[in-house]
């Protein structure tokens, strides 16, 4: 690729790396036994996951009644978690597809792990629609499959049916995209493992199989680049569509607080916001623990903070617009829902949401803040909390007081629900930690292509493996 190399550019990758050093740095954690810190993290995450498994098993064996739901509030933690995780899953595709199309070279350091995060987040998300049903063993009825019941099809008017398509499509495309991006790196590792032993180990064989006979020839690279570009083009609309469709779960309902045309853009912005928040959380930890400071530099953090600031502003605008729409609609039910959000029994949740998603990110206007890792980390955690509460507020405050005051009720989660939420985090981090151990967390091939950016004094590196 022809590159514009300006000596004024700040390097994307610090530390004057050579291609070989990159390979060395990225592969190092994979080729040596895990550290104590990794084990500690893994134990914690795995324990949480087991807690979640226990909670879900108990719930499936006993009934959805083990959650704190009631006749009035039919969804709470379950769908909150679902939307939260789907939202988290947005950053990966955004970074890998949209930023790729926009030629944002800085994405190369983070796209691999962001995409992995996307997959794990969508896996976590996918659990909730299944377990939230009263009869999870029949949840496959949400898919249109050939059957002998008439044949009986699903209701194509139901947003839940659309969800099934949206989420499964998203998962498939994201997984494909991630895997295709991995192929050159898998081949690198295959080659590095080659001399290890006389008989090929299982690991060697797996890498050999999954690198699909990658030879690193120009022809292969060419095919690869074209495919990657096409997949990026294919994945881009999904970034918009998935959360748009998820938002229709609410927007097509008659319940005030749900029934709003603003939901699709509002949800997409929120999803990207929360996704980048989660990427930051993970990256800040990873660069520290895995000594990747040269690859994930302050510049990356800064760029992502700017994205956070943008999406936070969109989300803030949406919060304001919702109130304005309610006021302007003249619909008393609609107006009530929003007053109730800000002043009702769940006002605390609403104000947590506003503080975390709107007020706290305002600090990011300052360059100094954006480049102070500790503060950014704290903010990214707050954004994760805030975005979880955003979904909780939308779902629970709209349901708990709808049209007939006789049916107004409250909601309080049970230990089973809290454990399930904790379990989903456990699953997410377990997967992520395993990923860190067995696959390259940084796209070596892509990073090597941008090594020279801002380093014009050096000769342009070859981008072969």
């Amino acid at each position: 690729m022809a590159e514009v190399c300006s000596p004024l550019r700040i390097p994307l990758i610090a530390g004057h790396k050579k291609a070989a050093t990159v390979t060395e740095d990225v592969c190092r954690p994979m080729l040596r036994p895990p550290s104590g810190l990794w084990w500690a993290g893994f134990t914690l995450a795995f324990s949480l996951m087991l807690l979640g498994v226990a909670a879900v098993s108990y719930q499936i064996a006993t009934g959805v009644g083990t959650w704190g739901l009631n006749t009035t509030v039919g969804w709470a933690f379950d769908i909150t978690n679902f939307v939260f995780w789907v939202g988290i899953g947005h950053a990966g595709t955004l970074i890998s597809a949209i930023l790729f199309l926009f030629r944002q070279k800085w994405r190369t350091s983070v796209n691999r792990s962001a995409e992995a995060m996307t997959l794990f987040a969508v896996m976590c998300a996918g659990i909730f629609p299944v377990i939230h049903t009263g009869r999870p063993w029949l949840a496959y009825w949400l898919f249109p499959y050939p059957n002998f019941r008439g044949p009986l099809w699903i209701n194509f008017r139901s947003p839940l049916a659309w969800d099934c398509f949206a989420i499964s499509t998203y998962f498939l495309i994201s997984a494909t995209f991630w895997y295709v991006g991995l192929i050159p790196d898998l081949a690198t590792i295959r080659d590095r493992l080659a001399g290890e032993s006389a008989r090929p180990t299982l690991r060697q064989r797996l890498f050999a199989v999954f690198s699909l006979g990658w030879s690193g020839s120009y022809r292969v690279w060419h095919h690869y680049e074209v495919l990657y570009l096409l997949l990026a083009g294919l994945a881009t609309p999904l970034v918009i569509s998935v959360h748009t469709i998820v938002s229709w779960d609410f927007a097509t309902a008659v319940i005030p607080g749900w029934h709003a045309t603003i939901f699709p853009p509002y949800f997409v912005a929120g999803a990207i916001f929360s996704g980048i928040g989660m990427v930051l959380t993970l990256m800040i930890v990873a660069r520290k623990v895995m000594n990747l400071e040269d690859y994930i530099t302050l510049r990356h953090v800064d760029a992502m903070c700017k994205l956070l600031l943008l999406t936070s502003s969109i989300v803030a605008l949406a919060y304001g617009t919702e109130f304005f729409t309610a006021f302007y609609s003249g619909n008393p039910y609609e107006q009530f829902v929003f007053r109730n959000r800000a002043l009702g029994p769940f006002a605390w949740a609403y104000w947590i949401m506003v503080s975390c998603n709107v007020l706290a990110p305002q600090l990011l206007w300052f360059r100094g803040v954006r480049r102070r890792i500790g503060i950014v980390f704290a903010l990214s955690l707050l954004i994760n909390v805030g975005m979880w509460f955003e979904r909780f507020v939308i779902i629970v405050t709209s349901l708990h007081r709808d049209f007939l005051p006789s049916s107004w009720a409250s909601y309080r989660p049970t230990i089973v629900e809290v454990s399930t939420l904790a379990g989903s985090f456990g699953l997410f981090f377990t997967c992520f930690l395993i990923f860190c151990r067995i696959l390259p967390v940084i796209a070596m091939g892509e990073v090597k292509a941008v090594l020279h950016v801002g380093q014009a004094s050096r000769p342009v590196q070859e981008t072969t493996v």
Partner: protein
Amino acid sequence: METQYWRSLAERENPSELARAAEAEFSENPLQQIEPGSSRRGFLKAAGFAFAGAALTGCSRAPVEKAMPYLVQPENTVAGRAQYYASTCGACPAGCGLLAKVRDGRPIKLEGNPDQAISGGATCAVGQASILGLYDSLRLKQPLAGGKPSTWAEVDREILARLRADGAVRYLSGTITSPTKQAAIDRFLGQFRNARHVMYDALSASAILDAHQQTHGARVLPHYRFDKAGAIASFDADFLGTWISPVEFARDYSARRRPPEMSWHAQFEGRMSLTGSKADRRVRTAPDEIRERLAQLAIRIAKLSGADDRFLSSASARGWQTTNDDGLPHVAERLWEARGRSLVVCGANAVHTQVLVNYINHLLGNYGATLDVEHPSRQRQGDDRALANLLDEIKTGRVAALFIDGVNPVAELPEAPGFDHVGLVVSFAGSLDESAERAHYVCPDHHFLESWAGAEPVAGLISLTQPVIRPLGATRAVVETLAAWTGQPVNAYDLLRQRYPAQWDRAVEAGYVAMEAPRAPVKPFSMAPVELALAATSPEPAAGYTLALYPSVAMLEGRQAYNPWLHELPDPITKVTWDNYASVSPAAATSLGVSDGDVVRIEAGAAVELPVVVQPGQHDRVIAVALGYGRKASERFANLGPRWIDHRPSVNDQGRVGENAAPLLAFEQGSLRYDRAGIRIAKTGRRIELALTQTHHTLTVPQQLGGEVRPIVQETTTAELGKPPEPSEQREELWPEDHPYKGHRWGMAVDLNACTGCSACVVACQVENNTPVVGKDEVRRRREMHWIRIDRYYSGPSENVEVAHQPMMCQQCDHAPCETVCPTLATVHSDEGLNQQIYNRCVGTRYCANNCPYKTRRFNWFNYPREDRLANLVLNPDVTVRTRGVMEKCTFCVQRIQEAKIEAKVLGTPVKDGDIRTACEQACPAGAIVFGDLNDPNSRVARLARDARQYRVLEDLNVGPAVRYLKIVRDGGQAGRPVPQGDKKNG
């Protein structure tokens, strides 16, 4: 020779090897690959054997069920077809006629007998629920001797051996309306020299009878005719809820309150009763003020009548002055205007008070019109004075043998009688209640659905009870037991048939027979007791907290404490389930420093600790507590409801539901008093989380959240009735016209003005549709399963609150929001306008319930236990029992619709209006619910859908509900007579 072609050089070089390889390429016989040497035949053998083995092991667990055809098919018995038998309800002495629905030999539903005068086709919640008592697995299955199972022969022998002719024999029973049974008791007691039959009612009306003894010379309970009453003043009589004969009264009352001609009703009461909630004018009056108010009213009416100077002069001599501040002038005027067709009733069990009531009714000329004393009611015959004497005899050891029939004195009376000094105590209780537990012998009576009996609830009306099932245990009717002890064994059927030989067949078929009853020996009205009553009444205002003990709509006196349906039935006013409580006014709550759920200790002789419910509209000095709770029968609910880690039991620390408030009752001047002045009440610091089905009580949203009033319940006034309705806004329809409803289009109309909130529909629906009981904990979590609920909303200031009852069930919307969102098409629209729920297609996403604006959908959060095999016999076989994880809701009783349609098809006639009556409509005493075909312009529901009062809830959403509501009509005065302004404020 054939030419050999070769495919490759290798083949030419070494043809044999390659030929083998080429063979092998197409020899992928999988069976051969499994195991060398095994054949296809061998595989099939092995597979067959394994398959058969698997199938056999699978079969071994199936229970063996024998289905045997009738050898001789009984006449008129068609499997799967219900039969109805006329009978009489035995749940209380009111004696409502019933039609018991029997399917395949087991009764599954009780419905009112439309031809019988007391029921008129309706029932109350308790009557509806009483069928569960038949299948109560804790009912006694044989007699007990000393607490041990015994046989009838043995028990008979032992009891006869212990009965001596000279000992004092006392027969303690509730009101006995059955002439046959009365005769049997008389015959039995006739054997003894010193024998007496004492009747008492746990919900006593003894003072009414005693007052009539004084004023009319006959101890009778008038037959109240609310259907003839144009103006009603009720003083603490909850005649729509629990007083004497609520089904009859509610029906008659509602009949007179159909706009535009509406009766006028004033209620003076301390607590908020169901009746008070329907009153045009409600005046908060503490129980200890009632007599004074009645005296005031008597003076006013005496003045208006201008007849009785003697009474007025004695009143003024005693310092009575008429005041204008209590709403009485207006009430007196309305009553006087409607004289001869007005009615004053009073629930206070105090003779002087009732004498004043009689006097007012006498002045108004209501005797013979709205009160019939010549053909009196027999629904309450208890005599408190006789009861007090008996208790005294028991205490002093002067009773040799005590027979207890149909009452539970140990739990119902202020002081549990000690049986230590009684030589022989025999109970006829069907289950081991508190009294039966202490009896020497228990001779269990049948359930009323197993027995032959007659009842005479009102003079001249004989209502028959016929068995609809063979007795489930070795129980014996009391009349048969008594006959056995009299030495002339006879069965109940013969006894009954001998009594009414002429009309027998007709009576059994109809369920009742009207007979000429002798006129009660009533004398002309006597003034003397009135003077005495006035003398005993102080015009001074009372002070301090007053306790009002009342029967709750579900529990009454407590004999229903075994019944989970009734425990889970929300109280029509407070919406509390599974508990009794102390209700206090908001002002009293503030001064006591308590709020909902705070436990208070109430001391009035005895003491009980109960959670507080803050009740708007209650008198500030009144603490109201429901009787009938804390019974032994409720111990069975210890394990009720789904069991999981966070489950809490439905019973309290004592293992029972609620607290028994009977120890707070007292005998005063020979009457059982339900109100106690001068009680002490104190906060204990404990809290109980009550199980409410409604926690927001008004249609006004909280002030800081907007404070607007939602038009869910709409009202109009008597003054506005005649005016034409405002034309409704025509809006463009965006929905396609894809539901033409060519045949039927089912709809419903609910008259909010008629609905009294009695909740009979709620239980009727539960019985009809196999709705599970979920227990206190689940209700607390707001997961009750009732398909129909009655929303209750308060409006106005808390001291002068107005109440609206709104039955709410699935609205069967035309554009149902639930239907579009279900991903599996488990809820779909029928071409007759029904919103159908297909249980086995439902995976339970709950999206439909979230999207329901009326929140009428119910989710099976658990597999609600149905472990009691006997109780399961009450299930309606026409309605699926739902499993865990499935949504359910009101179906408009689709099984009844189908049944009627099939019936019509067989007969080749169209379905007639009224052929289909949903369970709620069928049970409603007020006739507030009407179901029918909206496509039939002459159907009742179509006519109501055109009524000026009709509206639809949340019509603006354009979901197109199929349920029409008719606005409540408030007393807004009539043309030329506005409501007095000063009147509205006080009370």
